[in-house]
């Protein structure tokens, strides 16, 4: 086999695949954050906890009701999305008129409560979720586990579907209009508060969907989303929250950069995204795809 600057191709492509998978999760989560921020003006700190809830919902449904993975892929996001809808109706909607800071603090507190309760009930060690499609393909230059390939494809489809829904459909047009000028959109007889609730439910559902997809790869544990959401914040700062496509590209791109760092200089793999963030702030403070302000 050929070698690339002293790196065996197995390792290189293996890490690139891993990076692509991480990137898929960054993309799905930052997409949800961007959609929620656009409509609610709230940075949803609970995003990591809701991602974890998605994974837990799938794991619990499998354990208790024997619900297969493919059904969980639909049911878990709906359940967690409904939870998000309740959260929005009961709490978030009361603080929209306040500074962004309060939304951040409120959702941070909620994340502490949710993660603390899950940790108390199920511990923090984590539980395995059986791989729904075991096996894999030998691509010649690397071995590709089927499920991992499926995750990357599924994430791409989900991201593009979200982009299409928001940028190309009528409901998406209402949504974008309501982001720009809610009062005017209400004057046209569109129920904006309901639209906001739906948006939050959708964003939370996206996080939960990412959680279900992550369950067979990672351990299902109460704290699986805690550090992830912090990395996703950096992704959002790098990409800027103005553009849906921007979130997707940034998410996947940063995952790949992280994977490459793991090959060439492993100790920096945890911090490379933050270094990229610092560089972007130096060169283009509004973010790669962000509008100024």
């Amino acid at each position, binding site marked *: 086999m050929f070698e690339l600057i002293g790196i065996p191709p197995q390792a290189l492509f293996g890490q690139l695949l891993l990076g692509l998978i991480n990137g898929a999760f960054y993309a799905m989560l930052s997409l949800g954050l961007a959609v929620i921020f656009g409509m609610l003006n709230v*940075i949803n700190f609970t995003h990591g906890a809701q991602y974890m809830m998605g994974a837990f919902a799938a794991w619990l449904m499998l354990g208790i009701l024997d619900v297969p993975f493919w059904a969980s892929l639909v049911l878990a996001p709906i359940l967690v999305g409904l939870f998000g809808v309740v959260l929005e109706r009961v709490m978030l909607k009361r603080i929209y008129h306040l500074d962004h800071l309060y939304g951040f603090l409120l959702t941070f507190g909620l994340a502490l409560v949710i993660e*603390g309760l899950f940790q108390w009930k199920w511990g923090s060690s984590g539980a395995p979720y059986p791989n729904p499609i075991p096996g894999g393909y030998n691509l010649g230059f690397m071995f590709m586990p089927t499920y991992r390939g499926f995750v990357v494809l599924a994430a791409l489809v989900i991201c593009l579907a979200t982009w299409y829904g928001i940028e190309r459909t009528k409901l998406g047009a209402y949504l974008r209009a309501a982001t720009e000028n809610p009062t005017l959109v209400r004057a046209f007889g569109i129920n904006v508060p309901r639209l906001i609730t739906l948006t939050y439910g959708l964003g939370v559902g996206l996080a939960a969907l990412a959680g279900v997809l992550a369950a067979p790869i990672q351990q299902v544990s109460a704290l699986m989303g805690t550090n992830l959401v912090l990395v996703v914040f950096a992704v959002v700062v790098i990409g800027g929250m103005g553009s849906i496509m921007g979130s997707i590209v940034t998410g996947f791109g940063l995952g790949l950069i992280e994977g490459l760092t793991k090959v060439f200089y492993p100790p920096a793999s945890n911090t490379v995204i933050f270094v990229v963030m610092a560089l972007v*702030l130096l060169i283009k403070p509004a973010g790669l795809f962000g509008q100024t302000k």
Partner: protein
Amino acid sequence: MVGQMMTPSQGMIVAAAVAVLALAAPWFAYPVFLMTALCFALFACAFNLLLGYAGLMSFGHAMFFGMAGYFYGHVVKAWDMPPELGLLAGVGGAALLGLVTGALAIRRQGIYFAMITLAFAQMVYFFCIQAPFTHGEDGLQGIVRKPLLGGLIPTKDDRVLYYVVLAIFLFGYGAIYRFIHSPFGQVLKAIRDNEQRALSLGYEADRYKLLAFVLSAALAGLAGATKAMVLQFATLTDVSAAMSGEVVLMALVGGLGTIIGPVIGAFIIITMQNYLAATGEFVLVIQGVIFVVIVMAFRKGVVGEFSEWWKARRSGPRERPAAAD
């Protein structure tokens, strides 16, 4: 602020009572608990200087607090230098870290600022897990207490050290008071209230913001280094995102933008943690619940709500309904 609601003589009585309480406290309460609480109180005040008076919410202040603890420990233990130099290294290191991260973070505003500081703090946290001098998960342990001022002040006795920590706290608190009431503090408030106006008046907002950020980082560093001196260890907990959240909670519970609020908030949270330590995860759950309750119902915090109630009481019953909302 509490001082303005009372007549001067009432203010003197309160101040005297607080002074007596602070001096006599180690004979009634466990000194190490008091010292820890004072360190967190200074930390919360440093955070509040930035949020309350410059309008910048940092969600990554643990990086200054925790790193200063490591700097202190490394200088005192590995380099075997006197503790004064350790404290200095903690303050200086935190200020330098504040200069670098602050210069980048102030390039964005509002909620992005909070996210950027949070991300940098997470980067520092990952760095601390791997860097050899922090001893990773084990933490930097066994930083022996050495006498201060070349042997004049023995610090093995907790009660003696308490007065040292009290002095450090008062120094930090006094410094913050001076900043806020100086022309610099006035410019900061002007920028917080309307940045465009301050700019048009010729103030370079970014330089003022950066200076406030560095000062806040340095004082947070002083608190962190002092904590390492008291407890004789520095750990990953102090650089974690949870710690950044905790200091926000302390300032929020006490009252954002009040000078005494963060002190009261820190004492409330540290006391609560002390009593709930045995319940494990529930400390976090309860902290989360407090966040939610305060944001939903008591955004002014203990001091803010109290001073409102006090004003309403003094201004007579006719105006009382106005204070209800």
